[in-house]
């Protein structure tokens, strides 16, 4: 009874929102909600959408980022047509896919494996986590330089170690065949621990009762994973997967520092080509068109992943 009286009093203060049927507490709540989200969107408009729109516009012009933007010559979809017919751009997309696919398997595969291992041991858990996570905190540029030094075919310690073990040495970054895999080695080393932590978070949330029940029913480890673990970590996996793809398709620093796109375009991924197009070749608007195309590809792949990995239960 007392409750009804209270809400009736507050009900009167509905204001603008009463027009959409919100009153009292609900209106107050919604007002704050719109207020906060409004601020967020204000920021996004200023610092994300506006530059983005500008970039979209520029991609339909011919501009080198130096003359005033008003002088940019409008050329419609010419940039896009040029790119689609350019075998070098198409190659860079393929390289991007190759990179992302391998990095996906390496980072998520090893990360998940590590997570499973670490959650199943009794001691040294935090130490294991600490050590595996360490590579992640390093600046990418410093790590890339470090690995390039380690992988030098002549005096780098990787090859020197291989020679000491009487194994054939590799040409690492110097050879078009091995360059991409060498760079991938670094990026997987760097991020595996990170993904391990993510997966651990998800795995640790699975209630032990489920495992115990499975054990009683005589399920083997593989079955347990399939029937118990996987469905429960699936939502987490979806997000990890999406983020991984988005990040890897935009790889730049690693490749720029380690190989510069070479040797012989073996590691020339899209963002690298974008950078060169804009800043070496002075074709900034064409680089923007590349970015737009990349964005569309990322969008498509994200939607695809969400469809494939969506959990059926609505939590």
């Amino acid at each position, binding site marked *: 009874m007392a409750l009804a009286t209270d809400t009736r009093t507050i009900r009167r203060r509905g204001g603008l929102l009463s027009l959409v049927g919100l009153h009292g507490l609900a209106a107050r709540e919604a007002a704050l909600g719109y207020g906060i989200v409004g601020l967020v969107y204000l920021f996004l408009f200023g610092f994300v959408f506006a530059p983005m729109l500008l970039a979209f516009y520029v991609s339909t012009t011919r501009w080198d980022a130096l003359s005033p933007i008003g002088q940019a010559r409008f050329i419609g979809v010419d940039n896009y047509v040029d790119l689609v017919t350019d075998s070098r751009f198409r190659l860079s997309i393929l390289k991007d896919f190759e990179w992302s696919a391998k990095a996906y398997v390496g980072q998520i595969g090893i990360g998940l494996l590590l997570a499973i291992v670490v959650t199943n041991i009794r001691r040294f858990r935090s130490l294991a986590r600490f050590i595996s996570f360490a590579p992640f905190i390093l600046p990418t540029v410093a790590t890339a330089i470090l690995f390039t030094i380690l992988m030098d075919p002549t005096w780098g310690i990787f090859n020197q170690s291989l020679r000491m073990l009487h194994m054939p040495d590799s040409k690492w970054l110097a050879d078009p065949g091995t360059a991409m895999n060498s760079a991938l080695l670094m990026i997987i080393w760097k991020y595996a621990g990170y993904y391990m932590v993510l997966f651990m978070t998800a795995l640790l949330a699975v*209630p032990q009762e489920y495992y115990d029940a499975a054990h009683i029913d005589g399920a083997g480890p593989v079955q347990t994973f399939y029937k118990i673990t996987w469905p429960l970590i699936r939502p987490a996996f979806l997000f990890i997967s999406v983020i991984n793809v988005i990040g890897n398709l935009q790889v730049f620093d690693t490749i720029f520092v380690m190989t510069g796109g070479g040797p012989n375009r073996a590691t020339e991924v899209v963002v690298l080509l974008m950078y060169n197009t804009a800043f070496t070749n002075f074709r900034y608007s064409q680089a923007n068109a590349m970015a737009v195309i990349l964005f569309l590809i990322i969008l498509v792949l994200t939607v695809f992943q969400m469809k494939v990995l969506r959990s059926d239960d609505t939590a």
Partner: protein
Amino acid sequence: MAMRLGRRSFVSGAAAFGSALLLAACGSPPPPTKPAVEVPKPTEAPKPAEAAKPGAAAEPTKPAAAGAAAPAPGGAPTPLPTPTLPPAFTSIPQPAGTTKLLLRVHWSGSTFNEFQKIISDYNANQGPKDKIYMALERFVAGSAGPIGTFIADFQAGTQEDIYHLSDAYLADLYARGFFSPPPMEIQNYIKDNFLATAVGTGTMEGKVMGYPTENQPHMLFINKKMFEEDKLDPVKDFPKKWDDIRRVAKQLTKKDAAGTTTRAGFPAMMNAGEHALVQRLLWQFLNGAPLMKQDGGGRPPFDVTSDGARAVTEFLYNMAKDDSTSAGMGEVGPVWGQRRGAMTTHDAWGVFFRVVSTGQPGLLDEQYTGGLYDAGGTKTGNLSRNYHYVVSSKSKYKDEAWKFLRWNNDGPDFRMQNFQTNTFGFVASVKNFPLPKFFPDQMKQAFTDSLKEPSQTQMPVIKGLAEVYNIIRDHHDALMNLKETPAEYTKAMDEELKKAMNAAYG
């Protein structure tokens, strides 16, 4: 029930939480970091090693490191004596009543340090008389591409007053209104006192835009010791004809038991677009099929398809096929410096930076220098590749800038030339200038002869040059890795160069 739901949504929540953290750390905002420098290429101005003292043919006291081919005494290397650091040269503060001008260079380390000394000398002595104070900075971007920062500075109005730039961007930036030419008096002075081709690389639309600094003639360096070990005479058997180069390269290539090359007869210019271009430019020029027309007008056509041009391609490819090159061994510089190559074509700067300061001890004395020739071994010559001092069109102190530059570059002191020649072994861009003191006599003679030859060419002054470097780098590497045949190389180069020129001039 509530708890279980909570846990499940926490799973997705926490995972999503972590995932987005990942993105925050590696992805969209913050944006891709502009990295350090490109993977080790023999850059336009490499730097001397720590221990090198200016003016001396510094042989760092390194132990006899076991090169792969040389028999190793083995054991622990002898350590350096007490490690010393040349004192950091801090600039002097700005005196009252002077105007501050900004000069940016790409050097670092001891090079930058030594240059800072010259600037400080000016600021202490001549500067107050001129009422000018020079502030020296490095531009922050590797030689891979300072363009982003140039654009940023230009737009922001924080650009330097005086630029010191390589050929790579000069024409492009000129075309975009970055520079302002010197008064005619200075232009004429430059034309009178500096090498014609060096002046040529800085001449745009008939105007001499600034002082050329350093010159990089390209020579063939052979290792006398390796020749003699194989019963070849470095002087008499110095290969001039391309067939001879090929033959000697094959002979001098050494492999180990596993078939890996331990010493390449003719190291290839890998991952080095500018140098691959220089090498090809010179050879094609000498062979009567210039890579580009030098008339400086209109859209420059590249020639990679004529017979003379194809001959160069075949020649390089054949050596790669013979397996006498260093493809896969890394870049030319370290290969040369570590005695893993018998013959090298290289710019003059390699002598100090690749041989003396980072090469193995005694390597300098083993060098025998000669020029590049046409296929028949009869015609020789050289080329000019330079940096330039140019003044920004947006500078408020253009007159002061040129005043300082006169002090720095004019004779009789030729301070800049002296600095570069004696500190790190560059060849001067001034006519009749003595060569670096630490060059062996034979080397000095070889350079003098090659610069005297009437056959001189220069780096092309074209827009889109930086893109051309990248194109030739990629295809040259492919050719030397045997991933492209000469025919494929020629076709691809022709198409891509045409496209690049269309884009730059269209």
